[in-house]
């Protein structure tokens, strides 16, 4: 690499076309993994894999983690990290179950309460990172521990069920309505599985926020170069606090889904979900250095993770090998995301 390479001018036109083709391929890179997994699923299991129930089940099982991944993507875009989302989901899940069990609140009252709880802790994350200048890794690691402790304290370490029976032995109307948040077999309008719908809607909303609003441009600017962003008039502090608060709020939003999915809020719910969320964002092309990544990518990353799990499960691959394969997939996916991958393959390495 010490020799100075002068690009031969004769080849310039051919190389240009080559680069255009490659960059078009590069744009599709994010989907290669997904297409491969779908292909393997269809080839090995056909109808069993490719039917509405199975796909709904697979995406539904991951939906709460997918929603966390959207929040984590926002934080990652600003160059930070949020390790506390699993704990925040846990406490929101517990909040939802307790609101239902103790106070018989209606589902439409429970969701905003959980979102406020999540947003509150998210705001603290943001405040700690900006005003106290604690690195977000450290701040959210501390929050992971604090919130898990609070979760266990309020629940007395005992899981709280959401299928609450009234005096007549049937579910109370509130508990009946709460099931629609994701208890398997309960659908909106008898058709739509709420966790899947919620995940897709969250992705669309935050995709629009990031691509169409000034706030979205500021998020990318802060992650790309905070100093330049500040000099060009972006309020870096406000943006940072906002992304952490939004990430917390999304974790709060996912809480009732998690509680309904198991028909019970476990004090350990959401443990290590932050790793799945980060993995989804990274597989989807987000760079932990900040400034790079999209919600569409995270969406695909989440699909890859959950469909991979589904395909391996349907093919009865042993649990130990599943762990190995999932780890390898992360590495492969990240390599596939590299914009210079094709340059690299062609042998033209840039030092």
């Amino acid at each position: 690499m010490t020799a100075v390479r002068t690009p031969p001018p004769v080849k310039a036109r051919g190389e240009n076309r080559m680069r255009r083709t490659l960059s078009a391929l590069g744009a599709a890179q994010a989907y290669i993994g997904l297409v491969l997994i779908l292909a393997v699923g269809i080839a090995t299991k056909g109808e069993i894999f490719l039917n509405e129930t199975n796909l709904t089940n697979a995406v539904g099982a991951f939906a709460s983690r997918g929603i966390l991944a959207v929040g984590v993507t926002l934080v990652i875009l600003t160059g930070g990290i949020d390790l506390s989302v699993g704990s925040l989901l846990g406490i929101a899940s517990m909040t939802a179950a307790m609101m239902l069990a103790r106070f018989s609140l209606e589902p439409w009252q429970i969701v905003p309460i959980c979102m406020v709880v999540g947003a509150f802790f998210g705001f603290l994350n943001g405040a700690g990172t900006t005003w106290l200048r604690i690195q977000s890794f450290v701040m959210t690691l501390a929050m992971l521990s604090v919130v898990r402790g609070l979760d266990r304290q309020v629940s007395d370490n005992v899981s709280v069920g959401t299928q609450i029976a009234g005096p007549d032995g049937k579910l109370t109307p509130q508990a009946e309505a709460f099931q629609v948040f994701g208890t398997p077999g309960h659908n909106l309008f008898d058709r739509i599985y709420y966790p899947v719908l919620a995940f897709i809607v969250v992705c669309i909303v935050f995709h629009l926020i990031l691509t169409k609003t000034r706030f979205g441009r500021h998020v990318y600017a802060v992650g790309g170069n905070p100093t330049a962003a500040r000099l060009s008039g972006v309020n870096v502090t406000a943006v940072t606090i906002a992304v952490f608060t939004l990430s917390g709020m999304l974790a709060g939003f996912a809480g009732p889904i998690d509680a309904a999915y198991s028909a019970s809020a476990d004090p350990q719910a959401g443990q290590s979900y932050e790793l799945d969320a980060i993995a989804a964002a990274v597989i989807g092309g987000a760079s932990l250095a900040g400034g790079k990544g999209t919600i569409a990518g995270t969406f695909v990353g989440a699909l890859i993770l959950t469909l991979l799990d589904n395909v391996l499960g349907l093919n009865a691959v042993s649990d130990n090998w599943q762990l190995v394969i999932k780890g390898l997939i992360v590495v492969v996916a990240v390599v596939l995301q590299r914009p210079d991958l094709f340059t690299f393959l062609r042998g033209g390495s840039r030092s």
Partner: protein
Amino acid sequence: MNKTITTITVALCAALAAACASKAPAPSASSGDKSTFVVGYSQSNNAEPYRAQLNLQLQHYLKKYPDIELLPIADARQSSATQVSQVQNFITQKVDALIVSPTEPAPLTAAVEQACAAKIPVIVLDRTVNTDCYTAFIGGDNVLIGKKAGEEALRLLPDGGNVVELRGIMSNQPQIDRDKGFREAIAANPTIKIIADREAKWLKEQATPIMQQWLAQHEKIDLVYGHNDPMALGAYLAAKAAGKADSIKFIGIDGLAIPDGGIRAVQLGQLSATFIYPTGAQEAAETVNKILHGQPVEKQQVLGTTQVTKDNAAELYKQYDLSGQN
């Protein structure tokens, strides 16, 4: 500005010191007259419902002995390293007796030996250690419980059938034993087959998607055996959604008397049966009292199990329910 920080620091230190002081009621001072005894308990993980129940019961039963004081329960949060240091802390505090529920046998063996060397009587509760140097072991017999679950499966499937098994964390001894006992028992009827088994890590939310996949793969599933109630109930949710809950039997283990636990699930007809995994709290309280008053105790106390069926569920729930009693 600097002054404020100093003030805050001083205040924090004072608060910390106060918190520490209130936590350690100087057992060495009371050991002189021996009118009261101080007992330390190291729990492997407070956040499992079964262990939360154990803690509650131990506190409840120890209250019957006014001369025994239980220090705040030390929670190792599933980490053997944490637990070793907690046990060592109790040794340093010179507690009069120590109760340990080991996270894992091997790492805790040395710590228990240290306590033994310091002449502190040790009760090993629930899981074993690899040494003889303790005063009493109290625990359930998971192989036996697995066997009972298998016998229940034989009864539920007289004409044979397909069984799926949801396992706890693979390296956990209870998982290994509950699997072993079950397989031994169902061997009596070769037409009963375990067609699939997977690790659901004791968690309800892990069991649901696994069961969904099994329902997609296998035409006929007759019985689900979960190594604990939450996993069996997670599978039940999946089967209910697929409209197959009525044609499948569900067996769990643990039988906790909490609103979200296995006994209630049997009452509601979600589980065909569950088996109470005894906490051993009552026996531990009795044993520690005997030890402290110089009475002989049995070294190996292996506890039985009770099968929870629809008939005895209500009664058992009342018997084991401690909410509102502490």
